């Protein structure tokens, strides 16, 4: 499928993909505005190059690459993000539409996951990528992707167990 910038097909694709892409981008930045900047740049770049929008591994790799570039470009931002990650309890803008207390706890537990686990979890759960696509996005083996996913679920389960 060829992307044509002049038609409205991008709007349909973007409506479907945007929430998952934003969530994916939020792993590197703590504000929704920064995540939107990343997603905007990635999607425009992706569409401009006429990539097949079904090539989700490439799309997510583009988002990831732009997010990492953004952090590298701005060392102050990198320090700020690192500090934010070291204190996971620090209040940040929500990533999910929270309906009740259990969902809030679950969302917070996802925030506490190590980055390498959370990025696999986000791609698998909220973006429906296969392990093959995740592996391609991250440049790792499918087995590693599957392992990280299992570690993430195990960590969440342990985190959510009643003390």
């Amino acid at each position, binding site marked *: 499928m060829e992307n044509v*910038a002049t038609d409205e097909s991008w*709007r349909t694709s973007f409506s479907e993909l*945007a929430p998952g892409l*934003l969530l994916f981008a939020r792993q590197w930045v703590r504000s929704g505005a920064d995540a939107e900047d990343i*997603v905007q740049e990635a999607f425009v770049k992706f569409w401009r190059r006429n990539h097949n929008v079904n090539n989700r591994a490439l799309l997510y790799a583009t988002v990831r690459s732009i997010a990492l570039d953004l952090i590298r470009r701005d060392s102050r931002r990198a320090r700020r993000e690192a500090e934010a990650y070291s204190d996971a309890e620090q209040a940040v803008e929500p990533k999910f539409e929270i309906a009740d207390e259990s969902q809030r706890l679950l969302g917070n537990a996802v925030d506490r996951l190590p980055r390498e686990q959370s990025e696999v*979890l986000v791609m698998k759960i909220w973006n429906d990528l296969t392990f093959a696509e995740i592996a391609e996005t991250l440049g790792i083996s499918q087995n590693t992707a599957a392992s990280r996913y299992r570690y993430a679920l195990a960590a*969440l389960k342990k985190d959510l167990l009643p003390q």
Partner: protein
Amino acid sequence: MNDFSELENELKKLRPLSASPELFSRVEQGLTNVTSDDTLSGKVIRPERFRINWLSFGIALGAAAVLLIFARLDLNRSMKNVPVIASVTPAPRVANAMPANQFVPAGVSQIIYHSRDEGLIFPGESAQPVRRVRSQMRETSQWRNPATGASLRVSYPSEQVELIPVSGQ
């Protein structure tokens, strides 16, 4: 089913925040800019070497100018050192007609050494196809100083892209 199926279901119930309408506008604007950029360039990517050739052309012209300046300086110096000798021989008519120490264009040549038909393309949003023919050539310009017989030659590679309209009839 695995041990985590219940947890996976709970996670899937969590809904990520939607994109803001501003983000849609920004993406639309980005794509529109991209479209106009593409239209302006006719979706023909100019090869790097084409741009490099312009650079070479500039360098060649600069070098030619420097050579001309040095040539003039040398001639001035040598003219000063030559003692004035009275002569009964009339000076050649050509030398009188031309100012001394001045280079005049003596010729320009353009040799096409490679030409490639790159097929049909549709420039911009045009429905009319055109045939793109790319030619590599070497252009040589020559100047000559009639007074001294000195000559200067500048040669540089260049590339030309021709878009030839094609009729479907």
